Structures are given as structure tokens and as C-alpha cells.
């Protein structure tokens, strides 16, 4: 039966396409089993055959296409085999192909599968050699569809390499080729959209590349160029002239990276034109330029006349009706492009030894004319420059949009890579988006691999840091006598002065030390107060700051020192929030210039050993964090707390208690901070009831003072959580002392954090949610465990026991709170409930922005935070 309709003809073609695809598909499947050694053996065998047959294939290509120069086609075949092999023989393309130990990352290769490849008429055998070897190296199957005018030579090359590969053990059918026929073009169209094709690898004319990209398949399509080459006055002129001739005559100009228009500095115009002429080029007169243009440019399309592609210069002159007047062969036809360059008919790609040129009077003009050519059909492809002036080269390469910008070398052979430079050897030149391509690479094996990245979990950097010198016993304030300082600036509060602490400090400072005092710091000062302190400090020109007071004073002193040492810092910039301490954008100073001595007079914040400073700004608090905020010296002298009123003693003790609990369950908790947090909790439960009975007890004041510092070290490294976020919000909004605000949310925080979170926190240092176990451990550590007759009980394994321990912990906190008389809910803080309820959206928003929330063991959702604020209102009942 004769196929009469297009549909019937397509059906027959589709059956052929199915046949090609099926064998390629099976080969691709089998190829997945091959090792690197298998692949390298096959590639070696293919390369050997290609090298041995390079002359024969070149001859065949030349005879079939009547284009180019056989000698140059031999070189192209050798570039596609010998040079390519040299570059890829030691490269890994199977399994793990690259390791990045410092990143805990490996890259592995996965074949792409079935590649449908098209080869051009200008490089019919070298392109097939190149793509076949690349396919083998990457374990892909490849089906070639050659240009109709070059199908015999292309298919012969494919067959030769396939047979060599097969003999070396390659899978049957991994290379195949579409037989030459009058329906080859239609068959190629059908194959481009065939479901079994994984990648289209198109090299050739613009239309074909466009069709590849329009197929809906992943495509590597590389098409036409229009190479500008700028010859600057600093160039070695004779050498530049010769290399341009070498390049433009290479295979009679069929290489798409070859020079198309020269942009020549007028200063060297005579010299270079003389060189061209001396070396056998023909320089056209303006009238002759039109004759050449009429011959080599298709007036209907504006593109080159394909009949003259790859033809010798003399034949082109003959076609143009020009007699060179010389009996020696013409190498290149040079055409001055007069008038508006952008509209000149010869300012396009001419794959033949016809070369346009213009003279320019400056580097700027040279680059601009180069851009005219670059953006006239060759964007992203290739450009060239001859210059010795590095500044000119840099300006040119910055301006030009080309995947390869060849310097002081022939652009055609230079573009191939591996011969004149270390570019990847290729016969396919990616042009990037400028040329409608996906890559600017010299396309090669890496473009035919699916890269599998296997990142291992990164080692999360955890450090422990605290104040360098800590003096801890009652009476340790005497250490001030040995302090190395000539001028001290004491920052304190009016209270410290009244309680006699300021005098204690002044009496102990070295005799020759000049002392200035700033005692205007009230609780939770605003930044304006800190700025006033900085002004006073600048006048005093002190080398040491002594912070004497509670948490607010110590926090403020840290900022005073920071802005005193580094006045150019911007508070808004350093206060920018961050997710991960190791990746935050703010840059703090590495070293401080002024010594900071912290002497806490309350047992609460632990600020003397933390890198934090909390600052009140309007109705919210902002937290600054950096090691540079750590004081240099901390003096933990319980004598300074003996006269502390009960209410402040209790408030600050509950602040420390909150620190211990939040640091314990924090996502940044470590064995180091756990130990500190647990011991701080134990000391608070031991000391606070005794201090309530006997406020003057130095022994228990000392234990409580130590507890606050230990808890400070814990939060200084593990940070806090949702309890602090909520307390900051309420404290700032209703002017509630920090410890008191913390206590109001303590029990609800434990209840919330003991439940499996609605949303886990995605942070690499916290691979397992264990907040409930941590609370149980705390209860166990402070002696709330059940009687020893139940030796087998383990809170790690027994959930019911764990829950009982957590309840015991909550009850113990409740009992301590009631004993101390501290409010344990918002309703007990004296806040108007109506105002509080109205403020809930604002409080929630403030808490959600708080840095403290980042290290909570569960990801607190806004609805949950709002609910926690709401539930904190009623009078707290003893947990059951």
C-alpha cells in the first residue's frame, strides 16, 4: 500500500522513530549499571578509532558538503577526539564525581537517559565524534539526526564510533543514527517531541535550535554567532593580523566563533592593513564591498548566502565579480563597513572567509562598535580582543556579552577550547540567554549529567563563652583593689548609692584611679539615657567602666561601652534580628577597648556573664546579642544583696528560675548549659525559702547569687524561650519588672512546652524534641523524684512517670511562688483585665517578633501565643 496522506506518512515515520527510541531507551537502562572503569574503557576505544579515522572522515565530510578545508576538518576531528579525551579522561562521571569535605557534600552523577542530537553541515563529523564520546562518558544513549547535506559522513562517523564502543563493551544500541532520506527533516521533527527523548542536544542553524527549544523537551541548543574582534593600538599588530587570518581561514570560516567584523584602532590601521595585504588578503574598495555583499548576503533574509558557506575566498570574489589581480590564492576578503554599522548588510555572521572591518578613534568607540556587532545576532556567543593593555581588556570583557571572549588568539580555534587556552573542548558553544540558550558553557560532559547533590547534615557550631574573670565569694568586691585602671567610670542607679554600694566600690578602687560616677540609671532605661551616659564617659575619658547594680544597669553599661568604643555603630543596624547566630548579618566589633567590670547587686538577670543587653524602646524591648557585650570581670559578692528588699529578691530570683528552666529546654541547650541550668534551679529552691525566713543570711544569699550567675551562663549560651518573649511584651507594655513578668508565665510555659509541639522547630542543633524529658530531669535533679522503692522508674522511658515529675515541678514552682508572694498570672499583676484583653493582638505581635522565641523548643504559632496570653489572665491554681 502506498502512503498517500501526510498522516499516513507520519505514522510510518513514527514507527521508525519508535524503533530508534526503543533501542536507545534499553541501552540507557543498561548503561546505568556501568562503572567508571567500564565507561573509561569504552571512551578510550572510541577516541582511538576517531583519531585513526580523522583524515578519512574529514575527507568524506569535505567531499559530501563541498564546504571548508579538509586539513582543517582533520584538526576539528582531532580536537573532538584527542583534545577532548585529554580533558575528560581523568574526570569522574559515574557515582561520586566530586567531594566537598569542608561542606559535608558530595556530588553524584545520574545519566540523563536518551539524547536526541542534531549535527550541523559545517562540522558534520567532528560534532558527531564529540557528542558520541561525551554521551559514552556520561552513560547516555544518543540518536543522531544529521544535516541532510552531510548525513553520509555524519552517519559514518557515528557508526565507526559505535562499533568501537560496542567492541569495548558498550550497551547495544547506545549510539544510533537516522538514515539519510528525503523525510529526514520530518522524522527529526517527530523525534524531537517523542516521549522517550530526555534531552535534545542541538547544534546548527538558528531555526533548528529554535525548534529544539520549542519542543517542550529539555534542550541544549547552541546556534549562530556574530563575533566582533577589537584590535586595540596596544596589540602586537603583525601577530594579530596573522592569527586573525589563521582563524578566519580555518575550515574556510565555517566555525561559528570565527571573526566576523574587526574593530581596529585608527592608530594602527595602516600597519595592520599592510600586514593583511602582505599576507594575501584582499581589501575591497567601497564599491567592491557592495558587490561582495550582494554575493554573500541573501537579500530576502538578510542572512548569509548558504551556497557560499565554507567556500574559498577566491570563489567568493569570483561570485562577486571581482578580480583580485593576483596569481596567488586569496586568504580573506576584507570589507570596510562604511556608514551606519548597525545597518550594514555585512555586519552579520558570514561563515566564509569574508571579514568586515571599521576603524575607531578611541577605546570607548571601539567597545561600542564591538557591542553593535555583539548585539546583531551574536549575543552571548563569542567575541575577541587583541590588546596588551590589561585595562582595555577588562573594559572590553566587562561590556561584551559573550560566553567566551578570546584574548590575543584566533577566536575560532580559541573558541573550540583546549588548543589555545584551557576552555573546555567543544563543538557546541552555549550562548546563554542572549542567544536563547540555557548555558554559556563550552558544552561538554558536565552538561550531559544530572548532578545529584548529597549534603550531609552540617556540623552545627556550638561554643561556650562567658565572662573571663569571675570572682565569686562574699567579700570578693575587694578584688577592685587590684584592678588595673587609671580612670574608672561607675555606672549605677540612685538605689545603689543609697544602699552604700557606691561607696564600697569607690573605697576599693586603686588610690591613683580617677573616678567619675553616672548614677542616673533607673530601671529599664531608654536609649536616650544611655546616650547621656556615653557623653559623660567621653568627658571622663575612662579606661574602665564599672557597672554596679541590677540587670538594667549592667545591660545599659554594656551598651555604653559599645558605643563609647565604637561611636559609628548604628543601633538600628546592630539590633536587626537573626535566625542563626552563625549567619546573622550584623557585624559587631571583635575587640573592646575599654574594660568592663560588672558587679550585680541583685540575684537575677545574670547579665554579668551574658552577651545580652535588653533595651527598652517605647513599648517594646529589643535584645542585642554579641560576645563583645560580655563584661571582662564579674564580681559576685553576696554582701551586696543582703539589704535587698524582699520584693526585689523574689522578683529577681524568679527571673533566675525562669532562666534556668528556659535554658534547660532551649534548642541551643548543651551538656554545658544543662549542668549550669540544673544546678541553678537546685540552688534557688534551696536558698530562696531560707532567705525569705532570714534575709540577712549570707550563706543563702551567696547560694542565690551564684544561682543567678550560673543561670546567666546557661542563657548566655543557650538563650531563653517563649516565657521571656511574653514577659518582654507584657513588661514593656504595662511597666512590669522583668522577673515578676516572667513569673506570671512560668507555669503556663511549662505546660505548653511539655506538650508535643504543633510545629517542630527546624534547627540543625535540635534533632529531637525532648523538652518534656528536660523538665522531668529538672524535677528529678531538685529532688522531686518518687521514693527510692521504685528503682525501676525512668522518666526517659516511662511517660506517665515523666508527666508526674513535670507536674511535681510545676507544683513546686507554684508553692515557691505562693510562699514568696509573687504573682503567678497576669491577673495577679494588677493589670486591668479589660485593657489587657484589648492589648492581646499587640502583645502577640510583639512577642512573635522577640528574639527569645527563636530558641523555644517548639515553634510557637501566633494563635498559640495569643491563647497563652489569654490563659495567663485568671488567678493561677495549683497544678494537678
Amino acid at each position: 500500500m502506498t502512503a498517500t496522506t501526510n498522516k499516513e506518512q507520519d505514522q510510518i515515520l513514527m514507527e521508525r522513530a519508535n524503533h530508534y527510541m526503543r533501542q536507545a531507551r534499553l541501552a540507557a537502562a543498561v548503561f546505568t549499571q556501568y562503572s567508571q572503569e567500564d565507561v573509561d574503557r569504552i571512551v578510550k576505544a572510541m577516541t582511538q578509532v576517531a583519531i585513526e579515522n580523522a583524515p578519512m572522515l574529514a575527507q568524506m565530510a569535505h567531499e559530501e558538503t563541498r564546504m571548508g578545508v579538509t586539513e582543517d576538518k582533520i584538526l576539528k576531528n582531532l580536537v573532538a577526539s584527542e583534545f577532548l579525551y585529554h580533558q575528560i579522561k581523568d574526570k569522574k562521571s559515574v557515582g561520586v564525581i566530586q567531594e566537598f569535605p569542608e561542606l559535608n557534600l558530595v556530588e553524584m552523577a545520574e545519566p540523563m537517559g536518551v539524547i536526541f542530537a542534531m549535527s550541523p553541515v559545517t562540522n558534520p563529523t567532528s560534532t558527531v565524534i564529540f557528542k558520541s564520546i561525551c554521551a559514552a562518558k556520561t552513560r547516555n544513549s544518543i540518536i543522531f539526526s544529521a544535516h541532510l547535506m552531510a548525513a553520509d559522513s555524519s552517519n559514518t562517523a557515528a557508526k565507526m564510533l559505535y562499533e568501537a564502543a560496542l567492541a569495548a563493551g558498550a550497551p547495544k544500541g547506545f549510539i544510533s543514527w537516522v538514515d539519510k532520506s528525503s523525510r529526514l527533516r520530518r522524522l527529526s521533527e517527530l523525534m524531537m517531541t517523542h516521549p522517550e527523548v530526555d534531552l535534545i542536544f542541538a547544534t546548527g542553524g538558528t531555526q533548528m535550535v529554535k525548534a529544539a527549544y520549542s519542543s517542550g523537551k529539555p534542550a541544549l541548543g547552541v546556534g549562530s554567532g556574530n563575533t566582533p574582534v577589537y584590535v586595540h593600538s596596544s596589540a602586537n599588530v603583525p601577530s594579530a593580523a596573522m592569527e586573525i587570518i589563521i582563524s578566519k581561514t580555518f575550515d574556510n570560516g565555517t566555525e561559528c566563533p570565527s571573526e566576523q567584523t574587526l574593530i581596529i584602532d585608527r592608530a594602527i590601521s595602516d600597519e595592520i592593513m599592510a600586514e593583511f595585504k602582505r599576507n594575501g588578503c584582499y581589501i575591497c574598495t567601497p564599491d567592491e564591498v557592495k558587490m561582495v555583499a550582494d554575493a554573500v548576503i541573501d537579500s530576502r533574509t538578510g542572512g548569509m548566502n548558504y551556497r557560499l558557506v565554507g567556500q574559498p575566498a577566491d570563489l567568493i570574489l569570483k561570485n562577486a565579480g571581482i578580480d583580485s589581480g593576483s596569481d596567488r590564492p586569496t586568504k580573506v576578503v576584507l570589507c570596510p563597513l562604511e556608514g551606519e554599522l548597525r545597518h550594514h548588510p555585512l555586519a552579520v555572521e558570514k561563515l566564509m572567509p569574508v571579514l568586515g572591518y571599521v576603524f575607531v578613534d578611541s577605546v570607548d568607540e571601539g567597545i561600542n562598535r564591538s557591542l553593535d556587532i555583539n548585539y546583531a545576532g551574536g549575543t552571548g556567543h563569542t567575541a575577541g580582543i587583541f590588546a596588551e593593555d590589561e585595562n582595555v581588556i577588562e573594559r572590553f570583557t566587562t561590556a561584551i556579552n559573550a560566553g567566551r571572549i578570546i584574548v590575543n588568539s584566533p577566536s575560532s580555534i580559541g573558541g573550540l577550547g583546549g588548543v589555545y587556552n584551557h576552555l573546555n573542548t567543544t563543538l557546541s558553544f552555549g550562548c546563554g540567554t542572549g542567544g536563547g540558550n540555557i548555558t554559556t558553557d563550552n558544552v561538554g560532559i558536565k552538561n550531559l549529567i544530572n548532578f545529584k547533590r548529597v549534603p550531609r547534615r552540617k556540623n552545627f557550631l556550638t561554643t561556650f563563652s562567658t565572662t573571663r574573670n569571675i570572682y565569686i565569694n562574699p567579700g570578693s568586691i575587694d578584688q577592685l583593689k587590684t584592678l588595673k585602671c587609671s580612670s574608672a567610670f561607675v555606672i549605677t542607679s540612685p538605689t545603689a548609692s543609697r544602699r552604700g554600694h557606691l561607696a564600697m566600690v569607690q573605697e576599693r578602687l586603686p588610690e591613683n584611679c580617677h573616678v567619675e560616677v553616672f548614677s542616673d540609671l533607673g530601671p529599664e532605661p531608654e536609649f536616650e539615657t544611655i546616650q547621656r551616659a556615653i557623653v559623660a564617659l567621653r568627658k571622663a575619658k575612662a579606661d574602665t567602666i564599672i557597672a554596679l547594680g541590677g540587670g538594667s544597669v549592667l545591660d545599659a553599661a554594656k551598651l555604653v561601652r559599645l558605643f563609647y568604643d565604637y561611636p559609628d555603630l548604628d543601633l538600628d543596624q546592630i539590633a536587626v534580628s537573626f535566625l542563626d547566630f552563625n549567619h546573622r548579618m550584623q557585624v559587631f566589633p571583635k575587640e573592646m577597648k575599654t574594660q568592663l567590670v560588672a558587679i550585680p547587686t541583685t540575684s537575677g538577670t545574670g547579665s554579668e556573664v551574658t552577651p545580652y543587653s535588653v533595651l527598652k524602646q517605647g513599648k517594646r524591648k529589643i535584645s542585642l546579642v554579641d560576645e563583645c557585650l560580655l563584661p571582662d570581670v564579674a564580681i559576685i559578692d553576696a554582701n551586696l544583696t543582703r539589704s535587698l528588699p524582699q520584693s526585689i529578691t523574689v522578683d529577681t530570683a524568679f527571673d533566675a528560675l525562669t532562666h534556668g528552666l528556659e535554658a534547660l529546654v532551649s534548642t541551643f541547650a548543651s551538656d554545658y548549659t544543662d549542668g549550669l541550668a540544673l544546678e541553678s534551679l537546685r540552688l534557688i529552691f534551696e536558698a530562696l525559702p531560707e532567705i525569705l525566713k532570714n534575709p540577712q543570711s549570707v550563706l543563702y544569699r551567696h547560694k542565690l547569687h551564684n544561682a543567678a550567675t550560673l543561670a546567666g551562663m546557661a542563657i548566655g549560651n543557650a538563650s531563653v524561650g517563649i516565657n521571656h518573649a511574653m514577659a518582654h511584651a507584657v513588661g514593656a507594655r504595662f511597666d512590669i519588672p522583668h522577673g515578676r513578668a516572667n513569673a506570671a508565665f512560668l507555669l503556663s510555659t511549662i505546660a505548653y512546652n511539655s506538650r508535643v509541639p504543633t510545629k517542630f522547630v527546624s534547627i540543625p542543633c535540635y534533632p529531637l524534641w525532648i523538652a518534656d524529658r528536660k523538665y522531668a530531669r529538672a524535677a528529678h535533679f531538685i529532688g522531686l523524684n518518687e521514693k527510692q522503692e521504685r528503682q525501676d522508674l525512668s522518666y526517659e522511658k516511662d511517660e506517665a512517670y515523666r508527666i508526674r515529675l513535670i507536674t511535681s515541678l510545676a507544683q513546686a514552682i507554684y508553692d515557691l511562688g505562693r510562699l514568696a508572694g509573687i504573682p503567678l498570672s497576669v491577673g495577679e499583676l494588677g493589670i486591668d483585665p479589660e485593657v489587657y484583653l484589648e492589648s492581646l493582638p499587640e502583645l502577640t505581635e510583639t512577642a512573635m517578633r522577640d528574639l527569645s522565641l527563636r530558641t523555644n523548643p517548639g515553634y510557637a504559632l501566633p494563635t498559640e501565643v495569643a491563647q497563652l496570653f489569654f490563659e495567663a489572665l485568671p488567678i493561677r491554681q495549683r497544678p494537678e
Partner: protein
Amino acid sequence: MQTDNAQKIFIAGQLQRAQDNVDQLIASGAQSVVLDFSACTFISVDGLEWLEEMLLRADSSKAQVRFVSIPPSIYKVFKVARIDSIMRACGAPNTDKHSQSC
């Protein structure tokens, strides 16, 4: 080798060509054949083509052929080859080429 009512045959080493014992079993009218790939180390294109053709013959003679204990490297060959009948023999529930089973 017989397992329950099925005849079980091990495909050992490299499957480079047709396996006569399997072909004979199907030709003899066996109704249920199990091919155990646990010791199979490689499959060539010819091996794949034989599997497909053998499954076609089995289907014609109403015999059921199942592939079991398939190493991942071999199973990946089946997945990349996208041969429907082979995937069904691996236990794929339908003829969807992209469905997964086994």
C-alpha cells in the same frame, strides 16, 4: 525448583541472553513461574529484550510470571527501560508506565 504452585528459577550472574530453562518451562505449559533475581548482577540489552519477549509468550499461554528479590541496581534498569510488561512482572498494579511497586 518449586515454590507453592509456582516454579521458581534463579537468574544468577549476568543476564546476557535468553534462558533456556525458563523458555522450556513456559513452553511446557507451566502456569506460574517465579524468577528470583537475588543473584543477578547485570542485565544486558539482549537480556532485557528476552525478558520482554518471554513475558509476551507467557501472556499468550496464560502463564503468570513474577519477578522477585530484585536488587536495586537491576530494578533501576527495569525502571529506566520503562517496559510495561516487566514492571507488571515486578508487581506494578497497572499499566501506568510511571507507577511504582515492588
